[in-house]
């Protein structure tokens, strides 16, 4: 059973990694005209409030593993601890969204910029929250984060 669990776990992790690689969008909160510093500050305030109201609560949950068979004259089934869930995570995210909405932001998903879209040009990161348009997309920056650029305004 533990071997099966390891295989299932490895497949699940591989799936998560692949889905992360295949991510085609950048989730952001927008409020057209707002400076990036101000937006980051509002986001941090909402994060702090959400974390205070909904601190993490890890509940191990036991699920059937499907290890059921007919052994020795009777049906038996195995169970196992599959993973631990933070049962407050959903409410915390919901509160963060509501908090940002109260501050006037809308959640929005921007596409990642394709290499051919950028056509070898350089772009400056946007310093103000944009109005969504087909020319706004996200690029990776050093350090692991992402930033938005406007393809219609090459340097």
């Amino acid at each position, binding site marked *: 059973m533990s071997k099966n669990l390891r295989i299932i776990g490895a497949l699940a992790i591989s799936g998560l990694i692949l889905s992360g690689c295949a991510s085609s969008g950048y989730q952001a909160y927008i409020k057209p005209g707002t400076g990036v510093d101000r937006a980051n500050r509002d986001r941090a305030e909402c994060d702090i409030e959400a974390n205070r*109201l909904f601190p*993490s*609560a890890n*509940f*191990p949950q*036991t699920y059937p593993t499907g290890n059921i068979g007919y*052994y*020795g004259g009777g049906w*038996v089934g195995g169970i*196992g601890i599959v993973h631990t869930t933070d049962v407050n995570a959903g409410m915390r995210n919901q509160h963060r969204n509501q908090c940002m909405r109260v501050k006037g932001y809308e959640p929005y998903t921007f596409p990642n910029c394709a290499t051919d879209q950028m056509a070898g040009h350089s772009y400056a990161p946007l310093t103000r929250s944009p109005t969504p348009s087909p020319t706004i997309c996200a690029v990776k920056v050093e350090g692991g984060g992402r930033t938005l650029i406007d393809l219609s305004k090459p340097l």
Partner: protein
Amino acid sequence: MVRLTLSLAVVVGLAGCLEYTPMYKIGADTQETNVTRGQCNTYAANTVPPMIIQDWIPIYGANGRIVGHRVEYYDANEGRRHSTVQKCMEEQGFQRVSIPFCTDDQMAGRSYRPITNSPPLTGSICAVKQPGGGRVLIDLSKPTN
């Protein structure tokens, strides 16, 4: 023990299909309900930590001899943790209620606004399943169209 737990889980799961059984407090809005639940979840996670039990269950062959074994793991505190959440919420004035799901006939193609302030439960209040797995309450006596 394990079979009993699984049986209870099946019974509770089936009951959940028929009725919505939230912790409810008359007058509490969605924010208060969520915050209370979140804090009770954290309290329960901290006060009833996991107690993982490893059971070795023998497998007998046709001649009555042990031919192998299987291993079962479970958290012996899982049920107690959920009980702690419930007790914590009861101390904050919530109680477990049972609300029927709305039928298509009852809704009759009309639209309803979700209830967010937990009014006293009457026969016109029922629950609707949401696409994401959540549940909302509506009042059939107050259609929006």
